[in-house]
């Protein structure tokens, strides 16, 4: 079948260093992957195209890039699935949120720095046993779902928080952190959770779901971040904006059945945090102009008891 690819090119050594798109027309097999197409370009059409790839089977994590605007592995994306129905070209770009080195090759250093910052190694307590540590199979199977992360960076590429805040640890590093916190053999939870509670940690995720959508291995980083939030709070770290925000959110809904948006920032930042309060003024003015300021008097919804009953039920279950 005939396939058109539009590939974003960038050569830092060329006189024209503005990235541009180059179109290629190929004849491909029905079963071909986007990676097959790129390899065909590189081998038969244009040897100057640079990209990383190795295993061809979605395990080495080399070939994450954006296909039609969304991150994924070129080697497990079928050409036939990526072909736009209107006959236009498949658009191939380097992974996002990381500096481009050349063509589809990005600089992973910020990614590795994030991963390294969570102390990514097992930290057990006490003497090593002579044989293996005993651990329940279910716990290990559960961890396998996170350990199967191949560190390809697809989640980081499309993370909407990293787009605006490079301090955020990012979905991959946080999922990796969960892998240790969730490991019955690891004894550094206290230290780990304290660090994850800091700025750039678990509270910076906006729950946009993008990482869950693009992850090629079903790791669901955002779900891991949410589990970490719970563990952070269970560990008694309730005195941060994020934790207070979560508590205030829950309290409000339990009390009135819906969210009191006016109280939320006050409770999250603390009423005496003048700097934060002042920083919210422009937002308040904009909301006012757009007619989006919530009512000053926050009333309970009818039959709020039902909402409270849900809370009781969930809490008893825990």
């Amino acid at each position: 079948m005939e396939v058109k690819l539009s590939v974003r090119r960038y050569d830092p050594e060329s006189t024209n260093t503005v990235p541009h798109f180059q179109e290629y027309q190929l004849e491909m097999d029905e079963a071909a992957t986007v990676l097959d197409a790129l390899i065909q370009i590189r081998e038969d059409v244009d040897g100057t195209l640079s990209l990383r790839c190795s295993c061809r089977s979605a395990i080495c994590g080399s070939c994450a890039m954006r296909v039609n605007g969304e991150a994924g592995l070129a080697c497990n994306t079928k050409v036939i699935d990526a072909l736009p129905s209107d006959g236009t070209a498949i658009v191939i770009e380097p992974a996002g949120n990381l500096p481009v080195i050349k063509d589809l090759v990005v600089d992973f250093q910020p990614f590795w720095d994030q991963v390294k910052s969570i102390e990514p190694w097992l930290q057990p307590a006490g003497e090593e046993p002579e044989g293996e540590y005993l651990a329940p199979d279910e716990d290990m199977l559960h961890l396998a779902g996170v350990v199967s992360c191949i560190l390809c960076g697809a989640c980081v590429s499309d993370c909407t928080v990293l787009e605006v805040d490079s301090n955020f640890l990012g979905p991959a590093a946080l999922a990796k952190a969960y892998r240790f916190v969730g490991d019955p053999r690891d004894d550094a939870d206290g230290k780990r959770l304290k660090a994850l509670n800091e700025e750039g940690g678990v509270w910076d995720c906006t729950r946009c779901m993008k990482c869950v959508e693009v992850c090629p291995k079903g790791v669901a980083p955002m779900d891991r971040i949410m589990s970490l939030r719970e563990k952070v709070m269970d560990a008694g770290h309730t005195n941060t904006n994020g934790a207070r925000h979560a508590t205030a959110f829950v309290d409000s809904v339990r009390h009135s059945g819906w969210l009191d948006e006016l109280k939320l920032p006050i409770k999250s930042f603390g009423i005496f945090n003048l700097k934060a309060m002042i920083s919210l003024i422009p937002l308040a003015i904009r909301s006012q102009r757009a007619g989006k300021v919530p009512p000053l008097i926050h009333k309970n919804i009818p039959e709020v008891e039902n909402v409270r009953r849900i809370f009781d039920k969930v809490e008893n279950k825990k």
Partner: protein
Amino acid sequence: MYDHDVLIIGAGLAGMRAALAATEAGVNVAVVSKVHPVRSHSNAAQGGINAALTDRGDDWRDHAYDTIKGSDFLGDQDAIEIMCREAGDEVIAMEHMGAIFNRDEEGRLGTRNFGGQRQARTFFVADFTGQALLHVLYEQIVKAGALVYEEWFVLSLIERDGECGGVVMMDIRTGKIEVVRAKAVIMAAGGLGRVFEPSTNAMICTGDGMSLAYKAGASLMDMEMVQYHPTTLKGSGVLISEAARGEGAYLLNSENDRFMLKYAPEFKELASRDVVSRCEQTEINEGRGIDGCVLLDVRHLGEKYISERLSQIRELAMDFANVDMAKEPVPIMPGMHYQMGGVKANVDGETGVPGLYAAGEVACVSVHGGNRLGANSLLDTLVFGRRSGVHAAERAKNTSHLSIDDSAAKPDRENIERLLLNDKNESFGKIRFDMGTAMKEHFGVFRENSSMAEGISKLSLIKERAQSVYVADKTNTFNTNLLFTLELGFMIECAETIASSAFDRTESRGAHTRTDMPDRDDENWLKHIVVSDKDGKPNISYQDVVITDWTPTVRQY
């Protein structure tokens, strides 16, 4: 120019295990890898790692015997004993470092069956054991703070008066070429799968290490022993792990017949890989195949079991063959998978070149002989990786750097300049493909004298053509076009040594099966073929197989 006590080429399991051991010994260690460590090919290992744990009622001697029999009695028994004896400690060490492993009801490490073995002694993490172990070793490297030259490409080893004193390497990102001096260099650069087309191996498995060591004066051994894995997908060559058969999968021919019952009544689908691959190829050749394939059937295991223990494999079959294994059998065929041979090394990793060590798939300690058992390679990388690290560190403590300066990089600089100036129009992709298909045709599952001779002459033409590869990319930044061209040179060198070794062995043993000489000949051939470079041509010599307790017998499964 940089200086290190121990420099390790390769950040797969062998390289990183060596790095950890050398770091623990207290010397200055650096690792160089052409890809980031976690991208190394070790991550492709799906099935598991073997070890006979005594507290599970197993015995390392049984493991050793299965390995020796698997090797068709070409493996060196002293080395095999060491590997099998140290296996348990290595697996437990990996667990202590953080590897999760599947467990039994008591929370201890669980096992699965694997081919050619009478005991279930394969420890595993679902079906991504290699990735799980590789990431754990990377974590330990980060913890230890070992220096890694990530995405640097080794161009050559520096040899002075028969000793190895360092390497010349290129920063892929900038094209900068540097000389690195080291008191000991450990070669852990992995296999050469891409010499064959198709292959289960990643695109980075281009035999660099074997070729680099060979050119620096080291010998290669058992190069004729190329493993064809029984279950690979048609076209892409992607592997469906032996774990599938370990968990109970059947092999069926076009008549829906479980043909392995006939060839290997005791082990059935779990006979040694060389045996199963030959049986499949025979079925296909005799007209009981389907489109050049036979079928792998796991449906009877049930969807739940499949998704718990074989999820990755199921995904691979869906992605690359459009088949849901829980619902239909998947067509498979024998495919090139592993090189049993490699840089001749002893059990401490020492090659014939002082200062140069080798471990992992790149090496040949000869623990695999004529045929490697599934899940013995990960074990080989860890056991001999560790031992090389320890011994290289020891050497480094007792030697000083050779007098080498930046001029050592001159030949590589000139070679690259020459390649970039080539204007003739041969593409590396086309040459590699032609080489790979020639290797498959003439040195695949079945071999024969005149066919091999034809293969050898094809190779010399290919070598000619490779002189005029056109490198379109002239830049210094991430010039993958140049890298492939350099790798092509390494691959052709490996191909030549495979071909000349195979041509020389006038019997059938292990993976080396000749239709014109179908019998094993213990009288004349209980010996390894050793190749070294003599004026640019492979020169063959022999070394006797080491036999300790197990005398060769007829091999039946």
